[in-house]
């Protein structure tokens, strides 16, 4: 909680210290008369000293009120609530793929170390890791969305799909729109997870207790997944804690390329327009995810390692 409070305080004052004014964009093409500017500044609370703005922000925060977006003219909580589900859907899908397919492939590589499968997957993972996700997104959208017309090139819904189409049709529609952005984000993240998992697994597989398990005649599948893998998970769990906030903040480019209506694009436009209330709201969420990532990592450590106990 203290970490959270410090982070929020620093963020608030850093944002206000950054050059640029939320109303500057309005006055680019047409000058605002002093009275007009004063009206707008008062409307958005920008006429108050920064400390007073901070006090007002903290008071609102205690009531769950993050203020009103300067750009959208709507409560920030409502905007975040609308943008969070698409982000969770996108980020969650990537996380699930990452920590299922990525782990599985990493273990397979370690088990088949030096063989053709390992070499092939190593090459693929290195290529995937080196690939910029925005570039991959552009290529996929062009190839799959435009040339082959297999999947939608952008968006989250087909706006022409009527409300009477049924839940199944809507779910399939979202799933079709989800595939390309998930694929784009997953290629890089799975490659990283594979590399981490492979090296952790190799380390564990060389430990004496694994040799003992094999000597006892345990099936190889049981040695790998029950005895070795459990201990090879710790570096990957740390990675999970780090990925959690990155999946919100790190998908800005992919959200832009695929017109995905998530938090990343909202935060990016808020930075551009110096929409302080939205920026603070998005930062709060990211800070919460950082803390949550740390807590979840600690819990996972405690579950997997009997030597670790939560205080």
């Amino acid at each position, binding site marked *: 909680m203290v970490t959270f409070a410090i982070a929020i305080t620093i963020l608030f004052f850093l944002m206000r210290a950054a*050059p*640029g*004014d*939320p*109303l*500057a*964009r*309005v*006055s*680019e*093409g*047409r*000058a*605002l*008369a002093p*009275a*007009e500017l004063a009206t*707008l500044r008062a*409307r958005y609370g920008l006429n108050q000293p920064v400390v007073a703005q901070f006090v007002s922000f903290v008071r609102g925060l205690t009531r769950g009120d993050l203020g009103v977006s*300067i*750009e959208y003219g709507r409560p920030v909580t409502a*905007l975040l609530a*609308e*943008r969070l589900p698409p982000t969770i859907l996108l980020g969650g899908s990537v996380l699930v793929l990452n920590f299922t*397919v990525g782990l*599985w492939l990493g273990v*397979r590589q370690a*088990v088949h170390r030096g063989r053709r499968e390992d070499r092939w997957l190593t090459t693929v993972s290195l290529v995937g890791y080196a690939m910029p996700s925005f570039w991959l997104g*552009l290529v996929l*959208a062009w190839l799959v*969305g*435009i040339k082959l*017309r*297999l*999947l*939608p*090139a*952008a*968006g*989250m*819904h*087909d*706006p*022409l*799909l009527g409300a009477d189409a049924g839940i199944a*049709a809507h779910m*399939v*529609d979202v*799933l*079709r729109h989800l595939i390309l952005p998930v694929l784009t984000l997953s290629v890089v993240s799975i490659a990283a997870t594979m590399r981490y998992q492979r090296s952790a697994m190799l380390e564990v597989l060389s430990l004496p207790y694994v040799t003992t398990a094999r000597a006892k005649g345990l099936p*190889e599948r049981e040695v790998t997944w029950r005895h070795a893998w459990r201990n090879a998970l710790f570096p990957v769990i740390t990675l999970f804690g780090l990925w959690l906030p990155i999946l919100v903040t790190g998908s800005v480019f992919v959200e832009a390329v*695929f*017109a995905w*209506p998530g938090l990343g*694009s*909202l935060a990016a*436009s808020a930075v*551009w*327009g110096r*929409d302080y209330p939205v920026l603070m709201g998005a930062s709060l969420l990211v800070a919460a995810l950082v803390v949550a990532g740390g807590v979840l990592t600690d819990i996972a450590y405690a579950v997997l390692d009997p030597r670790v106990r939560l205080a």
Partner: protein
Amino acid sequence: MTRWTPRAPIIATVALLSLSRPGLTQSNQAHRGSIVIVTGQLATLPIPTLMEGPALSVSNLELADQLFLRLAGMGPTLLTTGDRGFIPLLARSWSRRDSVTLVFELDPRARWQDGAPVTARDVSFTFERAKNPAIAPRLADLLRRIESVKAEGERRVVFRFSQPYSEQLYDATFHVAPLPAHLLDSIPPEAVARSSFAAQPVGSGPYRLVRNVSGQFVELAANPQFFLGKPKLDRVIIRAAADPEARLNLVLSGQADAIDNVVPPLENIRRIRADSTLRLIPVPSPTVGFLLFNQRDPRDSTGSHPVLSDVRVRRAMTLGLDRHLMVHAVFGPYGEVPYGPVSPILWIRHHAPRAARQNIGEAQRLLAAAGWRDSDGDGILDRDGRPLTLTLSLPNTSAIRRQMSLLAQEQLRQLGIKLDLQQLEFPLWLERRSQGRFDINFEATSQDPSPSGLRQGWSCRGGTNVAKYCNPRTDSLLDQATLGRAGKDPAQAWAAVLRQIEADAPATFLYAPSYVYAVKRRFRDVVISPASSWQQLRLWSDGT
């Protein structure tokens, strides 16, 4: 465990292919009577009197045009002066009582979308709110010369102006569309933005709002009771994609039927042209791009700029650039070099001379006359030991301005002028601009159809005159042109303004582009208004 079989990838591929079967959802099907338009930003508050400050966006203005009808619309010439270049909408006719009184007769067929008739009281109520600086400071300023708006009975509205001038009808009809007083007079002005009316507006226009899916799209349905005829397209979807590449992909993949501006590079236009189902429609844009020369020293705004306060240097820079080549390189055939600060939607451009061509010899002569010579042979001109080096500031968000800047840098280098490019984050660029902290600022202004807006940037006390250009003669010419006294030709008055500005060269006017729209060929009767892109959508039809 020992033999690797790629089952998972195969299963995933099969699942993917089954999901992508055409016809599973409707996205690849043509929807008769519907149109999907992709644009950069979604409307947030398309209510005529509430589009102030950050809510003053093209998306809000364009959606408001579908929901709310104005008293009169602009004709195809976009002429803002006089009373004849306008098309009746809510008002079926108008007449003059004297030089400061304009009378509108409302069309008795006009109805709000809840069935109530549009009355003169709606008009007077709307202007009362629009002229209140506490509610609508921008509108209040624009409507400052409208003294009063009074209802005379149910159908007659009388506008009284503070002085005679040529754009009275424009001021009365362009800036704000009437709102339904019977729904809004019980809501305090400051509460309208968060009221149910703002979420589900009831207008008098050809379309009504069905739903607004945040960050994704807005759905409109045709208003069957629309008194000028039910729109031929039943459903309009306006979907948003901030990224230009995503917008293009939506059209090229068949997920959208129209796009409102295919931005350079020209490769994007070539991609659209290669799609036989799409047609390109260039439309005059409200944009004009120019290099603005600071007349003040950016380090000490009380002093003159050590280099750019000399008109010979400014004119030499203008003549040193091959602006036609630059425009062609960036916009292809979809742009022109403007004469003065005039975008393609300003009617005064038709009366302006052609922009001067590059003239290196004259540019060199002007620089030499101003004392700039290459005394040390390094290729850069100098005077009193000071090299002719200037900084050009531009926002890093604009690919067009970046490309133009590189071309200008190279061309001016050949003239002996060193141009350092300073690309800044947009808010920082704006801040430095408003503070006058620049040598040359790369501006791209979006203009209203009225040339009277030129006062803002080019008169001594103009609010956006950040470069502090000041010539009392220009001010006097602007006054004469804006007032448009009887017996004087407004076109000639504005031509004189432009000639004076060109002679003073407070900026090098670089480009006035057309916006290139792309629309599916299946749509017929496609008309796009430069003043508001989709205003004529009610007349479009689906030819399938």
